C-alpha cells in the first residue's frame, strides 16, 4: 500500500534519514521502534508532507505522493502527530470537525461523529469543552478521533503513548487494534517498544536514521538483541 524507496532527509547538515526503504501492506499494523532522535518522527513527517525529503521515492497505492500535506490528506494518508497537537482554542466538537475539513458529505460526517463518540465515549461528555482543557489521555483520544474523522485509509500514529499513565496506554493500544480491525492500515511509531511489537504484524528498528532490523512483531519480542536494546530485559 505504502512504499518508501531509498529516502534521505537532511536538516541543514544533519543527515536525519539515511536511505530508508520500508513497505506497509494493506490492513497491516506496522511498528517502527527506536530511541529518541533516531528519526522516527522525521520519517512520519516526510510521509505526511510536513517535512521535505531530500531524495527518494514515496508511493501510495502505486502512485507518487504529492508534495503538499493538504494534497496527501486528500488521498487518505493521515498523521496523528507527536504530542497530539490538538487545537486548544477549539472545542472538542470543532476539533473533530476540523478533522473532516476536506469532506463535504455533511450527513455522513454527522454519522461518523456518532460513531466516534461510540468508540471514544469520554469525548462525548466533553463536546463543548475546549481542547486545551482536556487531560493528556483525553487529548490523545481526541487526536486519534480527529484523525479518523478524515476517513483515512492509512493512519500514522506518532508516539500515541507519550506521557500517558500505563492504564491509559493500554486503552490507547486497544483502540488502535480496534481501528485496524475496521480496515484501516496503521503505521505506528513508538518508544514503548514492548507494546508496539505486541500489536504489530511487522516491525522495523530505526537507529540513527537507518533501518537496522526488520521482522515479525511477535518474533522480535523474543530477539535477544532487541530485548537488550529496547525492552530493557
Amino acid at each position: 500500500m505504502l512504499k518508501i524507496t531509498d529516502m534521505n532527509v537532511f536538516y541543514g547538515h544533519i543527515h536525519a534519514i539515511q536511505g530508508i526503504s520500508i513497505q506497509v501492506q494493506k490492513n497491516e499494523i506496522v511498528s517502527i521502534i527506536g530511541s529518541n532522535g533516531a528519526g522516527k518522527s522525521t520519517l512520519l513527517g516526510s510521509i505526511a508532507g510536513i517535512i521535505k525529503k531530500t531524495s527518494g521515492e514515496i508511493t501510495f497505492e502505486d502512485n507518487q505522493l504529492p508534495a503538499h500535506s493538504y494534497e496527501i490528506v486528500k488521498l487518505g494518508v493521515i498523521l496523528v502527530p507527536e504530542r497530539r497537537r490538538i487545537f486548544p482554542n477549539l472545542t472538542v466538537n470543532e476539533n473533530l470537525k476540523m478533522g473532516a475539513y476536506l469532506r463535504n458529505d455533511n450527513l455522513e460526517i454527522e454519522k461518523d461523529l456518532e460513531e466516534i463518540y461510540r468508540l471514544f465515549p469520554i469525548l462525548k461528555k466533553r463536546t463543548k469543552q475546549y481542547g486545551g482543557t482536556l487531560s493528556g489521555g483525553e487529548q490523545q483520544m481526541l487526536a486519534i478521533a480527529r484523525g479518523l474523522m478524515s476517513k483515512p485509509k492509512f493512519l500514522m500514529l506518532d508516539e500515541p503513548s507519550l506521557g500517558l499513565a500505563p492504564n491509559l496506554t493500554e486503552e490507547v493500544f486497544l483502540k488502535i487494534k480496534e481501528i485496524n480491525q475496521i480496515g484501516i492500515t496503521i503505521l505506528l511509531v513508538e518508544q514503548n517498544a514492548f507494546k508496539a511489537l505486541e500489536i504489530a504484524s511487522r516491525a522495523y528498528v530505526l537507529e540513527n536514521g537507518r533501518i537496522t532490523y526488520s521482522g515479525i512483531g511477535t518474533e522480535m519480542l523474543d530477539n535477544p538483541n532487541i530485548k537488550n536494546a529496547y525492552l530493557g530485559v
Partner: protein
Amino acid sequence: MFLQTMVTGLGIGSIYALMAMGYCLVFSILNFSNFAHGAMIMLGAYVGFLFCSIIGLSFFWSLILTAIITGILSIINERLAYRTLREKSAPSLYLIITAMGVSIILENLVYSTIGSNFYSYPKIFSRNYIEIFSSTIGLIDIYSFFVSIICIILLHLFLNYSKMGIAIRAGVSDPVAASLMGANFNVLIRNVFFLSGIFAGIAGVFMGFRYMVYPQMGWITNKAYIAAVIGGLGSLPGAIIGGLILGIIETIVSVYISSVVRDVFSFSLLILILLFKPLGLFGVKLEDKM
C-alpha cells in the same frame, strides 16, 4: 452634553474597533503587525469617494463595493509582498518592514496619480443631526456604530460556525496541525487578508466621510494600532473594547479639555497600559510581539 459625547465617542470608537480588528486578524495568524493596513484604509476612503461622489451610488452600496475592492487589494498585497517572505520563513521583523514599505508605496502612488488634494464626501443624510433628550446626536455616529456592530457579529458567526472560520482559528493556534487536517495554509491566509481588507474598506469610507480624504490619512490608523495594543494584540474582543475605550476617551478629552491635547492622552494611555499591563487588557501570551 454627556450623552452627545458618549455617542460621538462610541461612533469614533467603533471605527477604531473595525480598524483594530483588521490588524488583529492578521496579527493572530501571522504574528506581525501589518502596517500596510493603514494604506488599505486610505485606499478604501478614495474608492468609497469614487463610488459615492463621482459615480453617485448610494452610501450603502458604496460601502459594500468598497469593502469588496479593498478585500481584493488586501489579498493582492499579501500575495505580492508577504508570501515569498513567509515561504522562506523570514522573521516577523522582515514582514513588518515590508508592510511599512507597502504603505509608503501606496501613499506615494496616490500622491503621484490623484494628487495631494483634500476631498470631502457628499452629504448622505438629509440632515446630519437628530435631537434626543435635548442633545444633538450625529447620524453618522449612529450609522457607523451599527455597521460596526453588524460587522463584529458577522465575523463572530463566521469564525465560530463556518468550516473556513473554524479552520482559520485552528490555523491560528497550530498551522502545521491544520495542514495535517488538509487545510491549505495559503488559502487560510488569503481569507484572513480578505476579511481584514473588508474591515479596512468600511473603516476607510467612514473615516473619509467623517473627516476628509487625503493621501496621508492612513496614519490615523496609528490610533487603531493603539486600540489593538490596549486590547491586547491578537485578541478580537480586545480590539473591539480597545477601540471603543480609545474613541470615548478621545471625545471626552476633546469636549471637556481641548482637542489639541487629544493625541497626547491617547499615546499616554498606550504607554500606561504597556507599563502596567504589557499584554494589553485581553492579551494572549506570545514569545515576541511586534
